[in-house]
Each structure stands twice: as structure tokens, then as C-alpha cells.
């Protein structure tokens, strides 16, 4: 403490018996648990209310721990003169406490401890009505501080528990409850009663004088003192404030600008944000999974949609958070169950740098994950996609005590050109001959071969960070195992659930459509080379003069044949109905890209349609497993042409495959959620 003399709590009272009673009761109630030696000096400033004087006489006591001395001013001196009178009679530090306040447990000890720091002039606690020290609205509402039954002690306890104890510095203290050090009083003198004698502005004037000689004003951000507020001066309050403001402006021309700047760069933003977050604390008894994603979860991609549905399916069992790269670093989004039907979604922006992560090990990405793991307790981490994170998470997760699951949705870990298309045209199949990669990578990714070798070496050294590798198909696992040596016991094959509803009516064979109508094939997906637009164009041209029709559903990225029936963008959820409406009998997926699963094939099966797809990758695997379609070599135009011609002539084969498509088992994401839940267990 700045002084070993007892602290004097000055309480000027003019009107308001109830306020004064509550205030003094609260001071007395917490006195027994207060370590600081203090005395209370109550001034009856010639109150016109008889009851006030009588009450004050009744509370006067010399008993420790809170001796209360009552002084009756013979005539009304006004707030400022009364306070100055008290200051002049106080031996040490003083606290100017408005009579319409309620103090809380530990208030004086914490204010005194803060005042004990070097060069402190004043210390102000947080409150519900006190200029910059006013708590955020959310907290005022949560504890009913503006209602008739405010939960004062509960709020004080909450503030004390949740506070960051940053003791932020402000340009001026606030007068409702201001602790003033003896040092400041000795150096600056009392309040300027000549200028501010009518009240308002005197504490600001005092604080500015203290600042000018190098003293500081701090906010004790773990202490809450309730303030009824605006009781003083009644209707004259606004007028007096305006006059005080004008006087301050005349005396300190810089003050308004300084005050405005402080409001804009609120020094209490961080403490208050922490308190607000305290209102929405996670239920720590619930397991918590951190998902690593390559883009914001609301994006339109399949992985994002899959994750959203997965989190929703596991909402009753698991809380989730998502770490993903954004323009200015990394963001962490919560998806917590706080007991209502709606998840609490709160986004934190972690410190970082530009979004594009191009290094094998990106330090910023590693630090972002470390920060995320420091922010909350997580029981499991699920890597949904490492793009945008580099390989840094695998290193960070080496020390993670919980389960680490990695879903291999694309083959980014095998090659940065994860479409595995040699020079973006032909499937490379992850060649052992790296001279092919040496030609491909500079062209497709602007990367040298050394990047690939370095990437794979780094990844291989960190594979043990992952406890369970999840693939949507065996073929994806096979591609991965061409590059990395992973213990088969740690591999799980979990086919992706459908991202659209699977319970569709009318999944039945329409023989009239199959036998009596022109053969119609639908190329579904983004209209570009990677997905096989070239094949669709070629077929459309070759069949231009026949009854066979080639349709396209999706966004056109490259030039399309005029013979292609282009339907444009569509809503995935409506795809089965759109296909039926267009009279489609077969879905054509001619992309050379080795799919790791193939969501469109799932959607085709939901629409009860067979599929033509690449013989390799997940499409080939699934077509062979279900019998719901035919496999092709996407680079063999003639072969595909012959197949389609044959199917046109042999509709019974189309019927057979249609029946197999109907029989094929399709699961929803919710249906697969239990398998993921099992993986998250330690």
C-alpha cells in the first residue's frame, strides 16, 4: 500500500435514505473479511430528509473492523467541498464512495493492492453505471443489474473469477468509487472546489493534474461495485454535466480529443471481451473435438458440408471447434452445445499472416494450432484437410495427448498436385519414377521436385502423430500406401455418407424410360477438363445426329459443345429430381481424376441411376462393388463411344445396372457418425 495509515472511505450523503442504507450495510458486511485497515467517514451534507440524519446517527460506531464516523455538516457544502473536507481529515489513502453504491467482497483489498503499484494516483473498479468502467451490456443483462433485483454479489463473483487482472490504464478515474493514493493527494492537492464546486468534472480535473506530474489511473478489472447511478442532482444532472464539460474543455483543450481516442481504442476491450466470453463457457464435461479444415465451414464444398452434418449428428455427444485459414491468419470457430438446440458459434481470429501457405512446414500454421490447443481443452483432433495448414500440424500434434484422426479426402499428402493428373491431363497413379514429377510439378504447381521429396520426407517422419487414418475407399488408401508406410491396423475405411437426403420417394425401375425413350446420359459436375468435359463434348458431337443425348448439369468452366444439353448450376439437394425430370438413364463421370470417393456417384445411386466412371480410383472400386454401372478409360474416347452405342442398343443391360443401383446401399453422414464417434474415444 502507498501508506501504512488506514484507508478512509468517504461517503457524502445528501438525499436517499435507501441508497445510503444499502451502501453502508454493504461496507459493514464485507468489513470482516477485509485485510486493509480502514475507517468510514460519512458526511451528512445537511440533508433535507430528516430520516437520513437519524439513520446515519444509528450506524455510527467505533467498533472494528469498520469504525464509522458520522459528520453532520452545519449547512450544505456540496459534494466537492464535503469530499475535500474528508480528504483534509484523512491520514492516508482515501476512497470516495458515492452513497448510491453497493460494494462487494474483497473490494477494498483489491483496490488497495492495485494502488500499491508504482506511480498510481487512482484506482476505479468495474461497475454497471460508470462511464468507461461500465460492464458490457451482456453482463448487465445476465445479472439483471438494471432491474429491480440485481444480482450484485453473483456478478462480483463472476467478474472476480473471469477477470484477466490486466489492470488497464485509463486517462481518468470515475468518481462513483475512486481510490486515491495519498501520494497523489499530497502532490496534486484536493479537488478544485472553486471551479467544480457544484459537482461533476472535479475528479477528471484531479486526474488530469495527476497525469501531468506522471501518475497513472488504473481500473481494477476484477472488482465490481454496483452503482444505482444518476441519482445525484436529479433533473439538473445533464445541465451540470454540460457545464462541467465546458469548463474542462476550457482548461484542457486536448482532453476531448484524448477522451474520444480512448473511447475508440477502448483499453477495457480485452478485459470486457474476456468477461463476455465467460458468459458462454463450454461445459467441460462434454468431449471436445478440434477439426482442421482448409476453408471456412460455411463454404459450399463437399468436405465442408460433410463436416457440418457430422458435427450436427454428433451434437448431443460432442462439442466441436474448427480451425481454418482465413485472409489474415487462422480462425477458430466453436460449435458447442450449451444446452439449447442451437450450437454456440463463436469465431476467434488467431494471430497469423497471409493465408497462402506454400511451405512444407509453415510456422504460422503451427503456431495457430498450438494457440488453439492452448485456448481450450480438446479430447481429439480430426484433420479434415491439411491444405492451407502445411505439414506443421502433424509436428504440433506429436505431443497431443488425445486421439488424432486424419481423414484423407484427397491425396494432398501424396502430392501437392493432389488431383494426381500428370500435367493436369492424364492420371499419374503416383509414379515411382520421379522424373515424371520433375516435369509435372513445375508446370502444375510451380514447385520443384525437391519440394515433393522434402514434403514426403517430412510427412513420413510425422505420420506417427496420427492415431487413425480414415479413407473413404480402399483405392484411396492404396494410393496413399504407395507413398507412405502406415500400419494397416491404423487404417479405417469409412465411406462418406451422402451429403443430400437419401430417403427419396420413387426409387424404382421405370422400364418405359429405359426401353422406350432416347438414351440420355448426364455429365454431372463442374464443366472442366479435370472432370471430363472433353469426353462429354466429344460424345455430344459424335452422337449429334443420333437419338442419344448428352446432358450437362453444373457450372461450365470451359468451352462446351453446342450439342451438349447444358442445364447450368443446380442445387445438389435437388439433383435426383432434376435428373429424373430430364429423363436421364445414366450418369456419366468421365473425369481422369482418381476420385477418393465420388459424392456425385452417391447422388446418382440415390437417384437410382447407374454410372459410367473411370476404371481406377474410388469410382472404379465402387462401380465394380455395386455392379451399378460400367468402368471406362477416360482417355479412350473411342472405347467410351462404343460403350454408349452398345448400351443404346442393349437396353436390358441398362435395366440390369439400374436395378443394381437401386439395390446399392447408400448411407447418410449421420449413419457414419457413430464410426467417427468411436474413433474420437481415447
Amino acid at each position: 500500500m502507498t501508506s501504512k495509515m488506514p484507508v478512509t472511505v468517504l461517503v457524502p450523503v445528501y438525499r436517499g435514505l435507501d441508497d445510503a442504507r444499502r451502501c453502508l450495510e454493504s461496507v459493514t458486511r464485507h468489513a470482516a473479511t477485509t485485510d486493509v485497515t480502514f475507517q468510514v467517514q460519512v458526511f451528512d451534507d445537511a440533508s433535507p430528509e430528516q430520516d437520513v440524519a437519524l439513520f446515519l446517527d444509528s450506524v455510527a460506531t467505533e467498533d472494528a473492523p469498520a469504525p464509522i464516523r458520522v459528520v453532520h455538516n452545519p449547512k450544505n457544502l456540496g459534494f466537492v467541498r464535503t469530499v475535500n473536507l474528508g480528504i483534509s481529515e484523512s491520514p492516508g489513502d482515501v476512497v470516495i464512495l458515492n452513497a448510491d453504491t453497493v460494494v462487494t467482497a474483497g473490494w477494498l483489498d483489491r483496490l488497495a493492492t492495485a494502488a500499491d503499484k508504482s506511480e498510481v494516483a487512482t484506482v476505479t473498479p468495474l461497475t454497471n453505471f460508470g462511464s468507461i468502467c461500465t460492464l458490457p451490456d451482456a453482463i448487465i443483462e445476465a445479472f439483471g443489474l438494471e432491474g429491480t433485483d440485481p444480482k450484485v454479489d453473483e456478478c462480483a463473483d463472476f467478474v472476480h473469477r473471469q477477470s484477466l487482472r490486466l489492470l488497464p490504464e485509463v486517462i481518468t478515474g470515475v468518481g462513483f468509487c475512486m481510490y486515491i493514493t495519498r501520494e497523489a493527494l499530497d502532490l496534486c492537492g484536493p479537488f478544485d472546489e472553486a471551479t467544480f464546486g457544484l459537482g461533476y468534472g472535479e475528479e477528471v480535473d484531479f486526474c488530469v493534474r495527476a497525469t501531468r506530474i506522471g501518475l497513472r489511473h488504473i481500473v481494477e478489472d476484477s472488482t465490481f461495485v454496483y452503482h444505482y447511478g444518476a441519482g445525484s442532482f436529479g433533473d439538473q444532472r445533464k445541465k451540470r454535466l454540460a457545464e462541467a464539460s465546458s469548463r474542462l474543455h476550457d482548461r484542457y483543450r486536448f482532453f476531448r480529443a484524448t477522451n474520444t481516442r480512448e473511447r475508440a481504442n477502448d483499453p477495457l476491450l480485452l478485459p470486457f471481451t474476456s468477461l463476455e466470453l465467460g458468459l458462454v463457457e463450454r461445459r467441460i464435461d462434454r468431449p471436445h473435438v478440434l477439426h482442421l479444415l482448409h476453408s471456412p465451414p460455411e463454404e459450399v464444398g463437399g468436405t465442408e458440408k460433410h463436416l457440418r452434418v457430422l458435427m450436427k449428428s454428433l451434437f448431443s455427444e460432442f462439442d466441436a471447434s474448427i480451425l481454418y485459414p482465413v485472409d489474415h491468419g487462422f480462425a477458430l470457430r466453436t460449435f458447442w452445445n450449451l444446452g439449447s438446440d442451437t450450437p454456440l458459434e463463436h469465431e476467434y481470429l488467431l494471430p497469423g499472416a497471409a493465408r497462402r501457405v506454400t511451405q512444407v512446414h509453415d510456422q504460422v500454421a503451427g503456431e495457430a494450432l498450438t494457440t488453439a490447443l492452448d485456448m481450450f481443452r480438446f479430447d481429439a483432433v480430426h484433420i479434415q484437410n491439411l491444405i492451407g495448414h502445411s505439414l506443421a500440424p502433424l509436428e504440433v500434434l506429436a505431443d497431443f495427448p488425445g486421439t488424432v484422426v486424419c481423414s484423407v479426402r484427397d491425396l494432398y499428402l501424396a502430392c501437392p498436385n493432389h488431383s494426381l493428373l500428370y500435367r493436369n491431363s492424364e492420371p499419374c497413379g503416383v509414379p515411382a519414377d520421379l522424373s515424371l514429377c520433375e516435369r509435372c510439378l513445375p508446370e502444375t504447381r510451380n514447385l520443384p521436385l525437391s519440394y515433393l521429396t522434402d514434403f514426403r520426407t517430412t510427412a513420413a517422419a510425422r505420420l506417427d502423430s496420427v492415431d487413425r487414418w480414415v479413407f473413404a475407399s480402399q483405392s484411396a488408401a492404396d494410393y496413399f500406401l504407395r507413398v507412405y508406410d502406415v500400419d494397416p491396423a491404423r487404417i479405417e475405411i469409412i465411406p462418406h455418407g451422402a451429403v443430400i437426403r437419401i430417403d427419396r420417394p420413387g426409387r424404382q425401375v421405370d422400364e418405359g424410360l429405359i426401353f422406350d425413350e432416347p438414351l440420355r446420359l448426364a455429365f454431372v459436375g463442374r464443366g472442366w477438363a479435370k472432370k471430363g468435359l472433353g469426353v462429354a463434348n466429344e460424345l455430344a458431337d459424335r452422337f449429334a445426329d443420333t437419338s442419344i443425348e448428352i446432358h450437362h448439369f453444373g457450372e461450365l468452366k470451359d468451352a462446351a459443345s453446342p450439342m451438349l444439353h447444358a442445364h447450368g448450376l443446380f442445387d445438389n439437394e435437388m439433383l435426383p429430381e432434376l435428373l429424373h425430370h430430364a429423363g436421364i438413364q445414366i450418369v456419366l463421370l468421365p473425369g481422369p481424376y482418381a476420385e477418393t470417393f465420388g459424392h456425385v456417384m452417391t447422388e446418382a445411386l440415390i437417384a437410382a441411376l447407374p454410372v459410367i466412371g473411370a476404371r481406377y480410383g474410388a469410382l472404379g472400386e465402387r462401380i465394380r462393388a455395386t455392379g451399378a454401372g460400367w468402368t471406362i478409360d477416360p482417355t479412350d474416347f473411342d472405347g467410351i463411344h462404343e460403350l454408349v452405342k452398345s448400351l443404346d442398343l442393349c437396353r436390358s443391360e441398362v435395366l440390369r445396372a439400374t436395378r443394381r443401383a437401386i439395390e446399392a446401399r447408400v448411407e447418410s453422414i449421420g449413419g457414419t457418425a457413430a464410426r467417427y464417434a468411436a474413433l474420437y474415444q481415447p
Partner: protein
Amino acid sequence: MSASEREQRLQRHVRAMGAVNRHLQAQLEGGGTWTTSASTGKADLLTSGGSLSGAFITGGRRVGSANVWLEHLAVSSEGEKPFLVRLANRRVFLIDGGYRREVRSGLLAGALERTLGASRYVSNDKAGRWADGVPVEVLEGPQGPPFVVVGGKRLPLRGLPLPYPVGTDQVQMFPAGPELNLAQATVSRAQFQRALSGRYYIERARSAIKRRGVVGAAKAAASRVTRRARRTVGGRR
């Protein structure tokens, strides 16, 4: 304070910093600065002469960038008539005064095409000949319509919906619905039109030559023409 309490406090601190960062980022993106809440308790009447309680200060957004752009645009307007180019990766640039200026907004690219003509396809190598210039972005003065600077001239924009700043509370009065992607809506239609134009055949021919060589492609084209002629004469099957 115990070690556990210290750890929890640090956790809270990092969370608060993350939330404050998000808040500040939202301000940057939203183009304004929220000052402290306008609730009764926070009111600061001592500064009534310049009170900003609860105010939204606009005009902070990207001012730094725009100033730099304007300086550059003012000195780089010489040269041939501006035109649009498109790369294989679908990025659209305005070639203006010898610089390539990226047009990030599909909405804007569509509007510029109407004035400057359709974008020409150029290879990455060719596009690399132009130095990077400032992007084509929408600017707005204190009065008058928003505009873009092209060829040293200010082209006013019509029909551009401008956002009006509102507070978080007001935003939260309405639940979020599906996203409206203006850029996608415009670009896909334009691309669809292009796809049906003669350019398709040029790209087809290029692809055929790459696959079969000049002679092979010519043969295939000739045989296609012959087939068509025969069908025209003989009627459709």
C-alpha cells in the same frame, strides 16, 4: 494464484485476444469503427461537445490502399486503349497503360466487358509481359456515384447495390439465409454464352491438333464434313 488458475487465466486471455482480433477484423471488413456502447451507463457526457458514444465512424475502410492506388492510377493512364484479358485459370485482367490490373469482381468484369468488349484469352506467358498494376476496385467519393478508374478516366457505376452500415444488434434481428453470389451469377451466364459461340470450335480444333497432330485433325475434320454432306444429301437416318 495456483498454477492451474494461472493456466486458466492465460487461456482466457488468449481467447479474449482471439475474439478482439475477430472484432477488429470485422471492423476493417465492415469499413467502420464502432465506438463504445451507447448504453446509459457508458454515456460520457463530459465530452458532450464531441460525443461518439455508440457511433459508427465510417470511411476507415482500406483508405490506405485506395490512396496508393490513386497515386498510381494518376500517373499510369498513358498508352493504348484499355482492354480485358482472361487467363486459363479464369482470372480477368484489365490491360491499362501497359499494366495488368486484376478485376476480382465478376460483377465488375461483366460490366466492363460491355464497355470494352469481350475479354481475350491470353496465355500465362503472354500475361507475364505486363507488369502488375493496381486492381480495378470500386471507389467512392464524398458525393456522386461510385466509380472505377479505367484508362485514366472515372467511369461512374450504375446499378451497383451499395451496403449501408448497420449495427450488430440490427444484423442479428434476421437469421442468416443462403448466400447470394453476385459474381458467380454474372460470370456463369457470360461463360455459358461464350460456350455457345464460335470460340468453342477454335478451342476444339486446338485440342484436336494437340491430340492428333495437324494432319490427323485435318483428316478428322474432312471426314466429319464428308459425313455431314452425305447425310444432308441422303437425309437423316
